[in-house]
């Protein structure tokens, strides 16, 4: 804080009654500014990161359930050899939509959505940096999701797998619009992810509470920051890729056509250059969630905070050097194989460091085994299994046997469900009180956990063996003589156990929403700033921006949190601080609700969906988007401009 603004940092301690009334008035004024206008219109134009993040979470979870229904039907089909529950056409749609839904419509959005909700609260600011962009991102994501599922429900869902290799997905072997729908669904979710990543990066870099230097940032915020950078670097590759595929199909370019000098392997390189980081984009936020839960419930700061941060950054870097291990069977030069084997093995080191640090934290702490901790313990157990099989398949000769078999299906479900969905459930139990103001039931939570843990292992553990016994993935049936029947039946028995677990979860959420115990501000006595807000947080989150003196602010100062005052309450002002040490730099008046982000989302949707059918979709979309953007940035009145200009401190 420069030139005397330090005077504004003071613990609030004036005469109690008077002070209370003054505060109440200030809160009212702040809420007046920050709250979302009521009704459906308000919902359309909202710029509140909390309400948008909750929408993301609810939408993503709905698609988790839909993707799960896909999976349940597949397990029904595979329970017996030579079954006829579904035919090859529907089966191919089922696994394509299942994979695409879980990766693009559930995992990435839900992980970044937790970031959108909690990053601003954990770093002590009132909103994300580009609130209107946030609203735009959600509608773009929603359109992509509805496009995919609309097509699937009309029985024209994509059927070439979630990585859609050409030529199978090319114009010659995949007529119709199925693959175009898939490619444009990717475009929608890409835009949404990029938009979210930019918001998280800028919010984290410029809006941290005074005193929260990079070194004091909570690990969950670090995780979201690393992931945001990964999205920025990974998404352009898949954007190129899905665009090449779309225009190969739409206007007959030959990027992937070997007959005209294109190369089908180009798609695989571009896709996996994105696709491998993608799994870490899903996994790293989960690491942040686990760290948050472990810290709170072990009742001590995370052991090896710096090592944890460096591990996440290292994972983020190395994740970009692994993509070729998805392509070992395509014939590579041996030196290249060696490089990618070494990189794929190396990524186990940062994961190991983090697991050891969590165990050290729990070991030296006073762990309370509440439901979020159960999920963390389940996570470690399952993730270690998935990590070990991951190291196995880093080896080329090993991978050549199990690549594209059920061994791989088992492996990636252990790392994705074990590594991400378990922490996500833990995070949900942990943060539900903040989201709603009420606690989830511990009893139902335990049922939820144990059913999921058992059901998951019954379903996926046998798949390791099935793969070694020769069962390829993506087969809609198999002959009885192969001897895969028993293990498949076992796997299918696990599926309803998982379904039961999810039903218990939904009941818990439903019942606790009305009848759960009231949570109060900080029911777990957790150390990070989101717990300094009311539950659920007020529209402006913090009446006064807190000042941070350590990594565990609510434990460092047990009585009252020091705050800075001086932000205006008659406009949407946020405090901008500098990148390294979070020293206050200037105040900034944020933009409020607007209909233009929604209009831009509509323009984007029209352009992208139309370009499934005609090349004219792109120019039409560009014109519409230009109109919407013009409205968005149309010069405001003088007073408004002054507000936006902010004030340097």
């Amino acid at each position, binding site marked *: 804080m420069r030139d005397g603004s330090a005077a504004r940092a003071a613990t609030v301690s004036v005469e109690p009654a008077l002070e209370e009334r003054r505060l109440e008035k200030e809160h009212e004024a702040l809420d007046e500014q920050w709250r979302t206008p009521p009704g459906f219109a308000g919902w359309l134009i909202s710029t509140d990161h909390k309400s948008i993040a909750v929408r993301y979470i609810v939408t993503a979870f709905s698609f988790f359930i839909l993707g799960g229904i896909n999976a349940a039907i597949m397990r029904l089909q595979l329970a017996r050899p030579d079954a006829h529950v579904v035919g090859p056409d529907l089966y191919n749609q089922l696994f394509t939509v299942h994979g695409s839904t879980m990766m693009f419509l559930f995992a990435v959005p839900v992980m970044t959505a937790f970031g959108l909700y909690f990053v601003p609260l954990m770093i002590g600011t009132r909103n994300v940096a580009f609130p209107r962009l946030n609203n735009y991102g959600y509608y773009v994501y929603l359109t992509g999701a509805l496009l995919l599922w609309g097509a699937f429900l009309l029985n024209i869902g994509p059927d070439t797998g979630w990585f859609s290799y050409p030529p*199978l997905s090319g114009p010659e072997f995949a007529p119709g619009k199925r693959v175009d729908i898939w490619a444009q669904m990717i475009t929608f979710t890409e835009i949404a992810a990029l938009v979210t990543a930019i918001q998280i990066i800028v919010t984290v870099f410029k809006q941290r509470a005074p005193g929260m230097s990079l070194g004091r940032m909570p690990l969950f915020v670090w995780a979201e920051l690393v992931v945001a950078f990964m999205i920025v670097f990974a998404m352009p590759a898949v954007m190129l890729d899905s665009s090449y595929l779309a225009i190969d199909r739409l206007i007959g370019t030959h990027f992937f056509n070997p007959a005209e000098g294109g190369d089908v392997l180009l798609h695989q390189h571009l896709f996996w250059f994105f696709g491998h980081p993608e799994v870490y984009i899903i996994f790293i936020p989960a690491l942040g969630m686990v760290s948050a839960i472990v810290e709170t419930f072990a009742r*001590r700061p995370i052991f090896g905070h710096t090592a944890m941060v460096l591990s996440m950054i290292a994972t983020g870097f190395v994740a970009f050097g692994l993509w070729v291990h998805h392509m070992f069977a395509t014939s590579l030069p041996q030196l290249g194989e060696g490089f990618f084997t070494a990189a794929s093995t190396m990524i186990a080191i940062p994961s190991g460091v983090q697991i050891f640090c969590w165990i050290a934290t729990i070991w030296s702490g006073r762990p309370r085994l509440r439901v979020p901790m159960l999920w963390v313990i389940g996570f470690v157990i399952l993730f270690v299994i998935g990590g070990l099989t991951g190291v196995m398949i880093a080896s080329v000769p090993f991978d050549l046997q199990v690549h594209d078999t059920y061994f791989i299906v088992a492996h990636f479900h252990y790392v994705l469900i074990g590594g991400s969905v378990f922490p996500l459930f833990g995070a949900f139990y942990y943060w539900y009180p903040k989201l709603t103001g009420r606690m989830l039931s511990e009893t139902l939570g335990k049922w939820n956990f144990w059913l999921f843990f058992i059901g998951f292992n019954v379903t996926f553990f046998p798949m390791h063996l099935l793969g070694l016994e020769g069962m390829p993935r993506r087969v809609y049936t198999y002959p009885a003589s192969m001897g895969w029947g028993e293990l498949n039946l076992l796997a299918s028995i696990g599926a309803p156990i998982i379904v039961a677990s999810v039903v218990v979860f939904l009941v818990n959420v439903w019942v606790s929403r009305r009848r759960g115990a009231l949570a109060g501000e900080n029911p777990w006595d957790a150390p990070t700033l989101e717990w300094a807000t009311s539950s659920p947080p007020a529209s402006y989150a913090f009446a006064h921006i807190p000042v941070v003196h350590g990594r565990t602010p609510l434990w460092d100062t047990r009585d009252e949190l020091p705050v800075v005052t001086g932000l205006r309450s008659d406009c949407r002002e946020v405090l901008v601080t500098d990148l390294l040490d979070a020293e206050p730099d200037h105040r900034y008046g944020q933009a409020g609700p607007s209909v233009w982000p929604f209009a831009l989302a509509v323009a984007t949707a029209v352009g992208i969906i139309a370009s499934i059918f005609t090349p004219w979709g792109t120019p039409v979309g560009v014109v519409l988007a230009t109109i919407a953007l013009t409205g968005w940035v149309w010069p405001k009145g003088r007073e408004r401009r002054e507000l936006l200009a902010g004030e340097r401190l």
Partner: protein
Amino acid sequence: MRAWRHGTAFPIALVAVGQHAQSALDPAGPQGDRFIGLWWLSLAISVAVFVLVVIALLVAALRRRHEPVAVEPVVAPEPAGERSLGRVVNAAVAVTVVLLFVWLVASVRTGRAYTSLRAAGSARAPVEVTITGHQWWWEIEYPDTNPSLRVTTANELHVPVGRPVVLKMTSTDVIHSFWAPNLGGKRDLIPGHVTTMWFQADTPGVYRAQCAEFCGYQHAHMALMVVAEPAGRFRAWLAAQRQPAAPPTDSLRARGERVFLGADCTLCHSIAGTPAGGRQGPDLTHVGSRLTLAAGTLPNTRRNLAGWIVDPQSTKPGSLMPQNPLGSEDLQALISYLEGLR
């Protein structure tokens, strides 16, 4: 049920190739053996690591469960305790690094051993086979400098035991992947590329291979039989395959040939020695000698053949072979004719 092994006769009826005929855990050649070595090594390391981590985790979580709950968090843990904790964590990381390095070395050595077959194989006159992937069957050719000695067959790869085999593979439509788990890893068949794969079968037997890269509707029904037999038998088989189809010897089969040549069959299928020269579907010159029909989907029996010809779509929906509504007498004649193509 095991794959046929060490037998002297080759019973055609024995095509219900069962468990372990397509399993990476039951190797029948040097590549498969090396995978097994790698598998047991990784399994041993993994079980040890898993047990240690889970024990540490559970002890850490449960060792103080009977102590009274601490109300206040420990904000600044004792430095001495932290240091010793740090030493344990560092040691665990060091062990991890060492284990990963052991694994890396084992992997590279196995990779080299795979290649050594290629190096040694070139000197030992390998059997060269060309495989072309189609939706959803395998075209198999034994090339020869003399065109009249070339052999084209489908969905059945015969190899001599104890001799290296080199597969040169490509695809005319989409990407497929050749995988015979008992004999070694897999290799993709990629349009526009020629990929090679070396393997050797040491134990005679019938092994099942299956397409491992998703290739559309009938990816599930794209299998291949690998018949590994003693060198003499292999030579005899190759010699027989080089012959054109024998002309029908009885009137029933002669009628069958007329049915075949008069119907749509010839648009897609070839039978050497007859005018049928289609190249869209499998070559049928010696179809009667094969173990299976429809790329490993059905055992090659009279009944299955009839069903397949009349209504391929019920067995393999989406297959490029159309339905062929034939009268019962024509059908019987056609089947007798095809069965006779041995």
